[in-house]
């Protein structure tokens, strides 16, 4: 039987249940072999990481008769220890939306029509070749995501950077954790957290920087709550611009004005130094000081360029820099009372307390996102609370393989699977592993995500292949980029599992095998690589994104770069890819280790994972003489950066008096193209809304569930107001979740970005609220 045949599955289920009923009436009754087969319907439980967020929960997927039938949290997974969130428990339903894309489609006369997969792949390869011939290799681009499996991202890199010879590879992770990468790179010289989730079991204080963990990383938040239950001395501090479930569950909720987290972090450091709470020995031995350019702009100009110019600084300069950040001045700017700032400093400064800081989009989607990452590291470095159990800054990710694929495989314009394109040694290493001429890999990066879509609009990029992501919902200042993608002589290929606003702009749609319908690996926030086997047959003509790339590559004549067979190509890719990381600082687990264990945390040295990097007690790559060895930098020291407060790109004014922040909700993941097809999740959270502060609503005479119009300089939309709802924005602020394609809040957002990371700020722009039907805006 075809495994996709739902009717056959129902028939066998009906037969099995009738047989079970008969057996309870007449124990021992037997029927023929078909009935016996239907009756046993054995459920096999197989491991896979969750499809959704960057936590990377281990799941056990129940498979019966070729269909996924249930989910359990994997009790053996050190990530989630048997518990999931509502998305994970119902994740398998996302496989079975009736509108799954099962056939390739080509746009003819404005309509997508089904074609044989081979024909669509031929067309993609032909247009790719023609575009390169007519407009040059930098006119073609690949745009993927942090949901790419590691083999997907690796195949894309090898084709574009090693085969075609363009650095036009980007991923939507640029929109969610590029600032985390540049933060790590500038402070430590190496990407990704030093610690791991096990820090939760040891910490006394949890400081959440603009991070609604109760909804966005609920499984980790539950681990924190469990830690506090076991030790009532534990404190959870929620630093945010909006009151959320996390605030209510925390011991202290501290609200600050948008953008002023920069001042708050510096204020905490000021107070730590003034009170003598810093760890002078740690700073002396393991820290050096840097400052960079200020007022770098906001990336709004076409063809924006910025390069930071780091220069050495010292302790005296740092102390004098912090003089601007006295508690009183910071209080005035942030709205956080001076006593509260002193309290926060005392928590970080108390040598008897272990402190972990968590953050995600609040810090990263920030026009000074890199700086903000640096500033949190400053605090931990100043008090020496880093790289040991229970002490450390921890940058969370939002996508299942933002770390594993985008950061580790390096699917960004400037990166390679190890190192950056501007580094000759890294290019040589890549050329050697890929067996291509080294000059094929260009040394100059091309476009970051926002500028790649600007280039598509301008016509500098003419062909774009988009896999596993939905930019026509998620890009800021959306209207411009949608119009750009729709222009004549732009060719857009979209590989996806469901129709989305992005398939609406596609010239070719390729049907993708989803998640457990193919073999793959994800890498989560704590450097844990998790492998899963193919557990289901994909429906229709669906094939993995990896194999789509390989098929197109072969049509372009790159057979020698992709010599793998379908049966074992994932293993072969893993073996080739891990050659890039073959050193004690990076080494990944072997294919066999990945298959047999519920995830393996790199660096793996002699089969052992490294839980705390840079600490010689745990990290074999660290020099035992140094104790702490920040070996990513030439002087083996971590950096404290002098990064000032600077205002946001667009702040409220008389015409647009409210801050607009966007984000997620518990029930939906990203643009909702999967979770909205899960009945439980859609029925719990069927549509987007705008949260308005109670006092603001009273002043504007808006009641809960009234329809209002939000207007920014870029666009406007009508949407239901929620007052005193799940989240409570501070006065003067509104919040809209972005999962709902019917309410595209990104028509309103601004495409300003952090000049270093090029990550847009989705959390801050200015809007006004109008009430339809009433004359004049309030």
């Amino acid at each position, binding site marked *: 039987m075809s495994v996709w045949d739902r009717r056959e599955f*129902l*028939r066998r289920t009906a037969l099995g249940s009738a047989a079970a009923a008969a057996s309870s009436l007449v124990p*021992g009754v037997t029927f023929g072999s078909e009935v016996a087969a239907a009756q046993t319907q054995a459920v096999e439980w197989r491991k896979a990481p969750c499809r959704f967020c960057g936590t990377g929960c281990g799941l056990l997927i129940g498979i019966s008769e070729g269909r996924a039938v249930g989910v359990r949290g994997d009790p053996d997974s050190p990530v989630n220890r048997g518990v999931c969130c509502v998305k994970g428990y119902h994740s398998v339903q996302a496989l079975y939306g009736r509108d799954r894309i099962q056939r390739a489609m080509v746009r003819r006369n404005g309509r997508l029509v089904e074609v044989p997969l081979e024909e669509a792949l031929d067309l993609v390869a032909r247009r790719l070749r023609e575009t390169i011939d007519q407009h040059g290799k930098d006119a073609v681009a690949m745009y993927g995501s942090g949901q790419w499996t590691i083999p997907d991202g690796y195949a894309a890199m090898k084709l574009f950077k090693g085969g075609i010879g363009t650095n036009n590879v980007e991923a939507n992770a640029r929109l969610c954790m590029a600032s985390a990468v540049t933060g790590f790179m500038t402070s430590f010289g190496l990407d990704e957290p030093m610690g791991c989730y096990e820090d939760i079991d040891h910490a006394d204080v949890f400081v959440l920087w603009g991070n609604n963990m109760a909804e966005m990383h609920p499984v980790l938040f539950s681990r924190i709550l469990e830690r506090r239950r076991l030790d009532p001395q534990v404190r959870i501090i929620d630093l945010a611009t909006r009151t959320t479930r996390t605030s209510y569950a925390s011991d202290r909720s501290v609200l600050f004005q948008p953008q002023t987290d920069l001042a708050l972090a510096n204020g905490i450091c000021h107070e730590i130094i003034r009170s003598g709470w810093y760890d002078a020995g740690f700073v002396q031995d393991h820290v050096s000081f840097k400052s960079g350019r200020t007022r770098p702009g906001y990336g709004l100009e076409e063809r924006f360029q910025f390069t930071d110019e780091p220069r050495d600084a010292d302790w005296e300069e740092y102390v004098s820099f912090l003089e601007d950040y006295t508690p009183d001045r910071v209080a005035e700017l942030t709205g956080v009372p001076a006593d509260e700032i002193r309290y926060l400093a005392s928590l970080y400064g108390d040598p008897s307390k272990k402190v972990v800081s968590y953050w995600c989009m609040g810090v990263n989607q920030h026009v000074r996102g890199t700086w903000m990452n640096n500033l949190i590291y400053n605090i931990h470095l100043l008090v020496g609370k880093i790289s040991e159990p229970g002490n450390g800054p921890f940058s969370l990710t939002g996508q299942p393989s933002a770390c594993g694929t985008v950061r580790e495989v390096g699917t960004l314009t400037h990166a390679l699977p190890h190192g950056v394109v501007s580094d000759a040694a890294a290019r040589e290493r890549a050329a050697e592993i890929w067996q291509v001429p080294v000059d094929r890999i260009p040394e100059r990066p091309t476009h970051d995500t926002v500028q790649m879509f600007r280039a598509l609009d301008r016509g500098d990029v003419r062909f774009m292949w988009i896999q596993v992501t939905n930019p026509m919902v998620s890009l800021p200042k959306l209207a411009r980029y949608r119009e750009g993608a729709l222009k004549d002589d732009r060719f857009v290929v979209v590989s996806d599992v469901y129709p989305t606003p992005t398939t609406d702009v596609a010239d070719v749609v390729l049907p993708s095998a989803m998640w457990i319908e193919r073999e793959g690996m994800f890498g989560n926030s704590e450097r844990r690589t998790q492998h899963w086997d193919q557990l289901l047959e994909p429906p229709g003509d669906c094939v993995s994104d990896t194999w789509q790339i390989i098929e197109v590559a072969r049509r372009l004549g790159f057979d020698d770069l992709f010599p793998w067979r379908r049966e074992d190509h994932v293993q072969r890719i893993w073996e080739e890819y891990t050659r890039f990381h073959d050193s004690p600082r990076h080494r990944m687990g072997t294919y066999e280790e990945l298959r047999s264990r519920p995830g393996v945390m790199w660096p793996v040295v002699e089969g052992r994972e490294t839980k705390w990097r840079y600490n010689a007690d745990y990290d074999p790559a660290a020099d035992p003489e140094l104790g702490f060895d920040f070996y990513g930098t030439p002087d083996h020291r971590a950096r404290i950066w002098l990064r000032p407060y600077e205002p946001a790109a667009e702040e409220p004014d008389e015409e647009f008096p409210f801050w607009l922040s966007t984000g997620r909700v518990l029930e939906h993941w990203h643009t909702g193209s999967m979770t909205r097809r899960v009945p439980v999740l859609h029925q719990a959270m069927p549509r987007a809304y705008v949260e308005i502060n109670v006092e603001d609503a009273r002043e504007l005479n808006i009641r809960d569930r009234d329809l209002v119009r939000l207007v920014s300089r870029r666009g406007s939309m009508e949407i239901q107001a929620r007052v005193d709802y799940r989240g409570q924005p501070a006065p003067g602020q509104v919040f809209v979740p972005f999962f709902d394609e019917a309410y595209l809040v990104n028509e309103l957002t601004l495409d300003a970005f952090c000049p270093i990371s090029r990550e847009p700020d989705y959390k801050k722009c200015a809007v006004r609220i109008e009430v339809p039907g009433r004359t004049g805006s309030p």
Partner: protein
Amino acid sequence: MPVCGYVVLPRPGALEDAARDLRRIEGCEVFPAENDDLLLLVTESDSVQDDQELRQRVNGVPGIQALLLTFGEIDPDTPMGDPVREARS
């Protein structure tokens, strides 16, 4: 597309006749027990109305003493209401 599963208890001695009659009804699949006077029945039809008609024909088979419905599924699109809340509203 309704699919249903039943246990069929035939009248004494009527097993063969009941099985034969059921097999003649389109949409019926019959699975006799190997070691007992019992049948399993799976029915498939294209609409709720067809399913009702089919069930009436099954009910009309003279050799059947009792019919136990064990499984029924109509359309996955039909949202499942909450019985408790609906009962109160």
